[in-house]
């Protein structure tokens, strides 16, 4: 049922309230008597006046206008939209985690600190790194933090003028953006015809100016960088460092550990690989793992466990790059991953990557019967399909087909990424989709391919079953209306 939902401000009526505050139990105090008038607010904020009933209806109805993992197949490539176990939500609702102030004395929160410490230990185990920081708030924040550490490390090792960061053309856009924020210059490395980093191109770009390379492995085509060991060697011999974007870590859990294959630092997306819900855009959490050599540069504080068994935050870190955010980290997100890893255990963690890769390859086979798969060989957790073969769909076929997919009750894959494949979809089913759901996805694509030939306007005018049809994005940018005041 599609309901035209008013905005809160349109439901607002003077005098309505959703909450009553208690009467004051201390002597009355007029703000005017203690605050100079020019520092006081002149007019009340134009917030809605509304009852709790209205609020409940409003947000419940809004929620019904959303696709989500709990309602739909959501195969967004590189986003790892796996099921978010409910125990994780209950776990972090515990007052032991939720009702704790960041400056509470450490003696009062040992169990919490121990859980954080154990999370770090588990992340060490799966990544192979000897040191972890859970301070970064998201994947891109973790990237940035690692690059800041690289910059500091080079400065201490006579490499202040190393300013180039090599980035494959298939990389996430955050990679070059993070590099620039650290004062680095991104240098693009072409992929070869197998969809992998071209070793010759890499060698020709590596020099005494190279600070680092940022690699995504498996890459955004869902392919494992087979030459990863050689790539690491080339960089290290040139005095440069290797960063790995961990967005696709879900594919290799228990099968390969980035530090073992030569990576110096990586970020992990707890909201992808480790089942923290994506929250409609956040919060994420982007812990980083680094080599022993880089460990002194980690952001402070660093969590340590002393011989007496007590966990403490260590703020006295001489070489630390400093801070990248307030307080310790996104504890509420981090401990969902703790709970997830504890429930999975060693076997369960391996099972995640096994089934993720199985699902992706099975779906690749099914989809490959209809769409062209430009790099059609064993993939890891995701694959990229091309939607160019529809003569009756001349304009932006990947977009048209994606919109039609919505009508068939499936959230479209990531579209138009990676940039090196035309009109593409990047499909990541994750381990939590069932065989039936994968087959339903393939069947939907079959239907769409048929429609593209026979009734292309069904696609170009899609979606037909959503609360709105295609929205005018040009108008949104040209005549910006960014608040309800206009």
């Amino acid at each position: 049922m599609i309901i035209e939902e008013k905005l809160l401000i349109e439901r607002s009526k003077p005098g309505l309230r959703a909450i009553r505050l208690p009467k004051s139990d201390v002597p009355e105090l007029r703000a005017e008597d203690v605050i100079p008038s020019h520092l006081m607010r002149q007019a009340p904020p134009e917030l809605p006046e509304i009852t709790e009933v209205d609020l409940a209806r409003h947000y419940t109805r809004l929620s019904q206008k959303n696709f989500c993992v709990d309602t739909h197949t959501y195969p967004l490539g590189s986003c790892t939209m796996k099921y978010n176990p409910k125990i994780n939500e209950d776990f972090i609702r515990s007052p032991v985690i939720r009702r704790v102030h960041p400056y509470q004395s450490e003696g009062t929160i040992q169990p919490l600190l121990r859980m954080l410490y154990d999370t770090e230990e588990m992340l060490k185990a799966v990544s192979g790194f000897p040191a972890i920081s859970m301070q970064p708030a998201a994947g891109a924040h973790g990237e940035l933090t690692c690059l800041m550490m690289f910059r500091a490390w080079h400065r201490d090792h006579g490499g202040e003028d190393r300013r180039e960061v090599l980035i494959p053309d298939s990389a996430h856009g955050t990679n070059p953006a993070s590099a620039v924020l650290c004062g680095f210059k991104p240098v693009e490395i072409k992929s070869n015809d197998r969809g992998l980093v071209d070793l010759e191109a890499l060698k020709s770009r590596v020099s005494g100016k190279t600070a680092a390379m940022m690699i995504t492995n498996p890459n955004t085509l869902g392919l494992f960088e087979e030459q990863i060991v050689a790539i690491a060697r080339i960089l290290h011999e040139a005095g440069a460092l290797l960063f790995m974007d961990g967005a696709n870590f879900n594919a290799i859990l228990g099968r390969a550990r980035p530090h073992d294959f030569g990576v110096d630092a990586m970020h992990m997306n707890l909201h992808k690989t480790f089942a923290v819900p994506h929250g409609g855009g956040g919060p994420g959490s982007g812990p980083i793992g680094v080599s022993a050599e880089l460990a002194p540069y980690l952001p402070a504080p660093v969590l340590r466990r002393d011989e007496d068994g007590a966990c403490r935050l260590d703020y006295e870190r001489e070489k630390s790059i400093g801070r990248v955010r307030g307080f310790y980290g996104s504890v509420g997100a981090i401990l969902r991953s703790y709970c997830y890893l504890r429930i999975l255990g060693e076997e369960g963690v391996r099972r995640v990557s096994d089934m993720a890769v199985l699902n992706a390859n099975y779906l690749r086979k099914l989809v490959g019967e209809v769409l062209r798969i430009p790099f059609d060989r064993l993939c890891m957790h995701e694959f990229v399909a091309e939607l160019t073969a529809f003569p009756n769909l001349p304009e932006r076929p990947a977009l048209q087909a994606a919109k039609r997919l919505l009508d068939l009750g499936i959230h479209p894959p990531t579209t138009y990424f990676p940039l090196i494949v035309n009109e593409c979809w990047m499909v990541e089913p994750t381990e939590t989709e069932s065989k039936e759901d994968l087959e339903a996805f393939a069947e939907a694509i079959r239907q769409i391919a048929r429609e593209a030939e026979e009734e292309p306007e069904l696609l170009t005018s899609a979606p037909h079953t959503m609360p709105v049809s295609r929205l005018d994005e040009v108008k949104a940018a040209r005549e910006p209306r960014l608040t309800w005041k206009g």
Partner: protein
Amino acid sequence: MPYISLTEPEIREMLDRIGVETIDDLFAPIPEQARFTGKLDLPAAASEIEITRELTEAAVRTTTLDRMNSFLGAGAYDHFIPSVIDHLAGRTEFYTAYTPYQPEASQGMLTAIFEYQSMIAALTRMEVSNASLYDGASGLAEAVMMAVSIHRRRKKVVVSAAIHPEYLATIRTYLTNLDTALEVVCTEGGVTDARALAAAVDQDTICVAFQNPNFFGNIEDVVALSRIAREQGALVIASVDPISLGILAPPGEYDADICVGEGQALGGELFFGGPYFGFFAAKMDYIRRIPGRIVGETEDGEGRRGYVLTFQTREQHIRRAKATSNICTNQGIIALRGAIYLACLGPHGIREVGELCLAKSHYAAEKLAAIPGYRLAFDAPFFKEFVLECPKPAAEIACDVWPDGIQPGVALSRWFPEMENHLLVAVTEKKSREEIDALADALARAGAHESGTSARGAGR
């Protein structure tokens, strides 16, 4: 495993279809030298029953805020959270969705963000708000970075010493690798020294960043500070406590260019420091420089109202190296809590919360300052937090009163060695008169041996 729906026969069938014998074969693309063949050093799988039991045991060894009388603040506050927030923000349709890349299937979240932006703009009286950033500290650093990108020819960022020390540390980290100087302006009487600021700001100054109420709880003369910045063409960046804005002048009223702040106080749980959200609002002139997601209203082919992510040409997935920032997430679900909180309180509620904080903190301040040996460190007006100078080191005082179940505030020696005897005391609307009186009694006992001596902490 509870989260995988494939049966063994299905797995067999799928492997056959793929054309491999075993699951191991699927990993053939990983070269042998890169493969991990050992056993991961992880604990054995636990059941939900076991995990839940661990939490029960953990509770015995934890003192949560509900089991103490806490006056902790310093950037994270125990404000009241209406029940409705958990119930609505806890809907899985919101929290298990991704960033709304497909607007037709994400109108719920997009509308909610649009309303969030509208309410942040209304609260701060700024023209435009983004969809939120990671937290208050990184949000302020992003604001400074944005100012750097606007004033490319200028070379100096000026920041008040009275901002949260962790925010200052974050700004320092972000600026380290850029060709931009950072000058920190000292305080006088617990507020930013206007004369020192005027001396520091010149034609080379990119921006002036201050916090209000500042880290010590004091209300800055934001009008004077902004004027000093503007006279030299520097941008004004205000980091504010959103709970204060029912009473204190919002940054839009003193013509700030960028307004940021920690959103945790708006319906966010404390969670030992996160996840919170940073709100970020600015003048419309800077729309193309703003970091993070922005939602805009538009319409579909049939003229129906709808919402989309807009101004995406600022963002990293389009602009890559030329993006305004590397940020690609907002704090979606936590910002949603903030929006529901603001809607819940409305224009009058937000003022009433502020009035309660103001009245209770002033009652506490008066009561504590009357105890022999204690006094208020500053005379400046304050909102919900103040600095109390104790007759002995504040960290010792905190230990002395802990047997009574009281956390009296944050000892400032943590960041300011010269403020050894200083305690930062936060009093929210949740504190009762009884609890404040209990704090006063405990402090009186803790200070009893010291009063009468001339023990006074050094430094201001």
